[in-house]
């Protein structure tokens, strides 16, 4: 079984079978990231975009970091770019508390993971991105601040806001 590094080298030389192996190894995590950041409606298309971009950029992967780390960074950048594009088209605002209140409480629901995912999806956009990157994906505040072009003080405040909203949701079950 080839390693990611070996498959990346083969893909860089034009081997689509090697690239497919990389896709299958990483698609779940990338799709989860994109879905949580942008929502289910955008997830399929943007996940495809991530892997197409990875194919185009794989020659720049030098193997200093794990391929999964490189791909994840690329996915975050693709998702943030899409967010900016969507932001120019969307012109709506729904108060977070109202949206959370509109969610079905689903007491006794068997799939609490999905319930939590739904609550994340309805967080305010800025808070959601920071929550996903920090608490789900493990990025540090300084990294998130650099990605988003804000201060780490802002990311901390937004993270706390997201957690407080989700905490109220968990408490409502």
């Amino acid at each position, binding site marked *: 079984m080839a*390693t990611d590094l070996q498959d990346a080298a083969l893909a860089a030389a034009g081997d689509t079978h090697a690239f497919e192996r990389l896709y299958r190894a990483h698609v779940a995590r990338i799709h989860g990231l994109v879905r949580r950041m942008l929502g289910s409606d955008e997830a399929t298309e943007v*996940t495809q975009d991530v*892997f197409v971009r990875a194919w185009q950029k794989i*020659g720049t992967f*030098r193997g200093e970091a794990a391929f999964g780390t490189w791909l994840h960074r690329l996915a975050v950048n693709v998702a943030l770019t899409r967010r900016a594009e969507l932001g120019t088209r969307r012109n709506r605002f729904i108060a977070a*508390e109202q949206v959370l209140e509109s969610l079905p409480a689903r007491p006794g629901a068997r799939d609490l993971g999905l319930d939590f995912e739904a609550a994340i999806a309805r967080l305010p956009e800025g808070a959601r991105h920071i929550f996903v990157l920090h608490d*789900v994906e493990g990025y540090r505040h300084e990294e998130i601040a650099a990605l988003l072009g804000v201060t780490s003080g802002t990311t901390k405040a937004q993270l706390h806001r997201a957690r407080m909203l989700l905490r109220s949701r968990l*408490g409502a079950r």
Partner: protein
Amino acid sequence: MMDAIRDAWTDRLSEYVDGELDAAERGALDVHLQLCENCSATVEELRAVLERARALEARAPETDLWPAIEARIAPARKARVLDPGGWLGRRSGRPAGSDTGRARRWSFTFPQLAAAAALLVMLSSVTMWVALSRRPVAGPPLPGPSATTTAAALVQPAGFAAARYDAAIADLERVLKEHRSELDPATVRIIEQNLLIIDQATAQSRKALAADPANRYLNGHLAAQLMRKISLLRQATAIVAAHG
């Protein structure tokens, strides 16, 4: 209203949970939590949120996206060798894949070339030193699909895809050889110097692997060297293509 009771510490509780308060603030909040049931309960709830977030599992998309991805990358596959958009290509200031613009000769400043060469030497030396220093370490058997599987069988041998690498490298070297006269001599010289460095590192890897074919680190190191060579050749041929 989400919180019936808020105080000066409410907005710092996430930082407390994440261990980001300094010692003095943490000490003060520890004392506060002994006295404030609301903040104490909130801390526990925030920890529960964090625990839930960390427990979320990756889920693959409901439909296989590969066919659509493959359809999108297939047209680019044939052009990939001559149009990688790598670091040499970006020096042109033209977007990857651009076939517009007037042909020009390429050159780099000495500090740029020296830095690139030095970096390659350093990377090769360090990684080989690390790899060789790890070789004698004996450990438990590698995990495998069955008890009868040997460690060697679980690791790709040195020639795991040698034919495919060699074919790609041969194609690129042929293109570069046919068109090298179109490149600035200084650029050709540095490309060849770097290729030599990579070849030396590759030879070291192969030699070490001959003694320890199952060494995963050495296999990875070899793959990295071959990938560097392919990448460098692709970028060099991209310059050629841009001039064509």
